[in-house]
């Protein structure tokens, strides 16, 4: 069969048209580029491509205690407030704290809050909810051994009224900044910034930046608290991907640990707990350093305390 001249011309035109279509801009829509939420029920090619922003944090993450292991695993010592930008109110409250408060029924099963849990001793699981139609990630979830399921909403919903209930996980929304997931959390219940009584108020807010580098997850958690902190308090924590890890169940049952009269809350009165100075004495550190405050977290504080060799050997445990 001999093709007609018209047929050849049409075929040639088609061949020339294909590159024009193929090289159309595949960029995201302006709305997606601005991080605005998209419809979750209507298919939008631009939305689908925009969802390629960011990275997938899904997996089982093992904590690596190569920073502050004595504080994070066995627990911090009484009176150790080194490098934390606390104010006088936080310091006084911490110095009235007694560890036996953990034996109260109200405290025994209390989970770590969203701001502290990164620094806790628990394995971590991260998973995602995906809208079945748009295939966008609508929510990230993070769960540790001793925590509640924490949801991070990615659909652009607003934070609730300030009068809405506060919870251990708070209310979290996320957005992408390149491959960094930035999360804002409000509505936290009162918690602690260190497990030795350093308080964090329910007015605090939390900003997190999740960063994935190969099989390493680094999270910068920045707590701002107008009640107990004079500056934002930042910690950066590392987890390693471990596909063999499993976050076990944590069935917590309240029991009577100490025989005490009802209504007793373990505490010390201000200025009466001499044990809060033991840490400084044992480690050979200046007492003013162990009392914390923003000054202690900056390098120039060493000019004030001089060159000191610590006497602590935590590895003896």
């Amino acid at each position, binding site marked *: 069969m001999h093709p007609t001249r018209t047929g050849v011309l049409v075929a040639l*035109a088609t061949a020339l048209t294909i590159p024009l279509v193929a090289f159309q801009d595949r960029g995201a829509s302006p709305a997606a580029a601005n991080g605005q939420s998209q419809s979750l029920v209507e298919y939008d090619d631009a939305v689908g491509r925009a969802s390629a922003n960011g990275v997938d944090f899904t997996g089982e993450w093992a904590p690596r205690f190569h920073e502050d292991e004595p504080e994070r695993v066995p627990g911090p010592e009484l009176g150790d407030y080194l490098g934390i930008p606390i104010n006088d109110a936080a310091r006084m409250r911490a110095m009235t704290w007694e560890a036996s408060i953990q034996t109260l029924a109200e405290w025994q099963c209390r989970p770590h809050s969203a701001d502290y849990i990164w620094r806790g001793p628990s394995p971590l699981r991260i998973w995602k909810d995906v809208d079945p139609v748009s295939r966008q990630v609508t929510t990230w979830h993070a769960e540790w051994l001793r925590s509640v399921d924490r949801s991070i909403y990615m659909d652009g919903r607003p934070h609730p009224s300030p009068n809405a209930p506060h919870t251990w996980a708070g209310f979290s929304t996320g957005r992408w900044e390149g491959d960094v997931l930035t999360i804002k959390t409000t509505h936290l219940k009162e918690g602690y910034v260190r497990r030795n009584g350093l308080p964090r108020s329910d007015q605090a807010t939390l900003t997190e930046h999740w960063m994935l580098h190969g099989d390493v997850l680094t999270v910068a958690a920045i707590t701002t608290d107008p009640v107990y902190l004079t500056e934002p308090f930042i910690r950066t924590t590392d987890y390693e991907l471990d596909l063999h890890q499993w976050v076990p169940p944590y069935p917590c049952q309240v029991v009577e640990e100490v025989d005490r009269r009802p209504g007793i809350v373990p505490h010390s009165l201000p200025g009466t707990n001499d044990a809060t100075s033991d840490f400084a004495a044992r480690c050979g550190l200046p007492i003013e350093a162990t009392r914390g405050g923003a000054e202690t977290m900056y390098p120039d504080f060493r000019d004030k305390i001089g060159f000191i060799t610590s006497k602590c050997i935590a590895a003896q445990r």
Partner: protein
Amino acid sequence: MTRSRVWCTLVVLAVASATLAAQRGQRGQQPTQTPRAMAPSDFTGYWVSVVTEDWRWRMVTPAKGDYDSVPLNPAGRRQADTWDPQRDDAAGEACRAYAAPAIMRVPGRIHVTWDGDTTLRIDTEAGTQTRLLRFGPRAADSATGAAAPTWQGDSVAAWELSGRGGGMFGGTPAKPSGALKVVTTRIRPGYLRKNGVPFSATATLTEYFNVLGPEDNGDRWLVVTTIVQDPQYLATRFFTSTHFKKLSDGSSWHPTACRAS
């Protein structure tokens, strides 16, 4: 369709296609962007370390034998137990705790600048050290082993790229993720901590740098994730992440010499 209409259509399509091809050709002829021009974030400026972690091992000199948190193997612990700062001073080795695997963890300010278009330079107050993070292939003398190991080693830098996707329609061009990856080798043996916690000549340092913010209060942060691998002294990879807050200027810059204790 008449023959003249077909010819008309063909001419239009041919012109459009030729224009597109020309544009693609021009793109292809554009000179490759320099690493400096490709920087996804501004890493330059003065930054101060904010010591909210490992205070006991960073702000003061730890006690001999205090290597808690570091995954040392038995050989590493034995080596750490031999620490003698006077001996280091006498041997001119006072900078052992200021080498690349440790220097970002030493409290102080750092100054990040571009040294040309292909090298990021980090100057440190602590120990007055200079790190050169070179984009591109390793220097020839280092690759062949001609150069002696140094405290800051030989650092090869690259912008991290996001994935490309896959499948029939899923592919997208790779783009910078925002992070800087640096791999450093040929490091003169030194200390991970000031109290003699060792790393060996076989150590490899991998770092990821991220600039974060501005936060609600205007703060900008530089976060450095550090991974040290050392088959001689470490049982596993050693992970730390260190944060620096951006300063408005260098008015407080005050370099200091290395100290062995």
